[in-house]
């Protein structure tokens, strides 16, 4: 089996300034499925084609940003092994009890040197995608409601010690580096893209002036045509767009960056290429960041390295 250990991003908990306004945004404009609310008042969503109970959790707060980002691992044994590996590496961990997040088993939580809380878990309830497991149709009505991404795909996080965070993901969690943006000294990484699968990235980090920052949470859509449809839906709903629609040189994804109602950036994207751990990394010298970011327009978008929540 190819994908073992850490399998994929599983959830992001995002802080919003007006819970019902953003719940409405993610439900009706983004087209995610609301799957529950808990005693703390948090609102749970999943993308229509995801089978596990939740991938986005919204929490009312007085500041925007991300609380934590979680990955699903292949078994409880792997969870325990990675927990021990992290501890051996010098990373303190904490077990969050099963059920603290709805429909989710025990989570191993730790902080990486960029100031972000990362979680691992093995169990989350399979609630299905609205289609039967025998003779399923290719899509259901939810696939046409709003932007309707098929999955929460990855996150880009910002903080100071990018190197320290990168090393934990590579040396302990089994990720590999697919692409990097490198400063004019030819060495210092300004941003890194890391994969635990065949995707070009499951998580990415960018060097930022403040720790614990969210750059964006990304949602996958199947085609460029549907990226353009997403752009139409954003404009129909006065969604503040940051960049795009265009194509990234980095990862080759066709993309739009935009903001939710609390100023948390999100991405809707398609494309990219299939990546394998034996492939040589791709390097973008910082003077080529304009085309790395926006290949079509070769435009330096100043907000990419400066706007975080």
């Amino acid at each position: 089996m190819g994908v073992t250990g850490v399998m994929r991003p599983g959830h992001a908990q995002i802080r919003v300034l007006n819970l019902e306004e953003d719940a409405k945004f993610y439900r009706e404009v983004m087209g995610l499925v609301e799957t529950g609310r808990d005693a703390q008042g948090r609102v749970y969503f999943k993308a229509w084609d995801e089978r596990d109970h939740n991938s986005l959790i919204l929490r009312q707060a007085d500041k925007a940003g991300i609380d934590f980002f979680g990955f699903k691992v292949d078994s409880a044994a792997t969870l325990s092994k990675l927990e021990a590996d992290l501890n051996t590496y010098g990373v303190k961990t904490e077990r969050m009890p099963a059920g603290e997040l709805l429909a989710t088993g025990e989570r191993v939580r730790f902080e990486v040197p960029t100031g972000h809380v990362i979680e691992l878990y093995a169990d989350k309830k399979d609630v299905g995608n609205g289609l039967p497991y025998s003779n399923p149709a290719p899509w259901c009505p939810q696939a046409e409601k709003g932007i309707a991404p098929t999955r929460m795909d990855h996150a880009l996080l910002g903080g100071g010690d990018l190197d320290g965070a990168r090393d934990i993901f590579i040396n302990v969690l089994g990720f590999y580096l697919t692409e990097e943006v490198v400063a004019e000294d030819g060495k210092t990484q300004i941003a890194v893209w890391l994969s635990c699968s065949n995707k070009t990235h499951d998580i990415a980090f960018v060097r930022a002036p403040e720790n614990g920052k969210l750059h964006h949470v990304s949602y996958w859509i199947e085609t460029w045509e549907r990226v353009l449809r997403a752009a139409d839906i954003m404009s129909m709903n006065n969604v503040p767009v940051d960049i795009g629609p265009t194509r990234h040189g980095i990862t080759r994804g066709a993309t739009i960056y935009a903001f939710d109602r609390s100023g948390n950036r999100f991405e809707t994207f398609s494309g990219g290429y299939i990546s394998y751990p034996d492939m040589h990394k791709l390097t973008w010298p910082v003077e080529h960041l304009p085309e790395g970011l926006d290949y079509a327009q070769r435009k330096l978008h100043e907000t990419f390295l400066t706007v975080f929540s």
Partner: protein
Amino acid sequence: MTDVQLAAAQNVVVMIAETGETYRCRTDESLLTGMYRLGKRGIPVGCRGGGCSVCKVQITAGTYAQMRPMSREYVSDDDLAQGRVLACCVRPLEEVTVAVIGKLNKCVTKTGT
């Protein structure tokens, strides 16, 4: 927005202190939206949702009203008392002058540090 509000909205002049540039902003739209919609520059444009702080300004003259919640990570009680607010979250009630505080701060400089 109701028709009554639309009818009541006025255009007022906003001046950016640093450059002396002015633009006309509706009293029912944010200071940032008014600038951005007319293609004017001066206040950095970021998330437009109160979350990132790059559009932070000090209102040095004129009155304004808050339209949306602002991330308290960037706007303290003292800031609010002193008129230091996010331009994407406040609307002018009359002619106002703003001084730009927000910046597009990068971590990595030319030397890569």
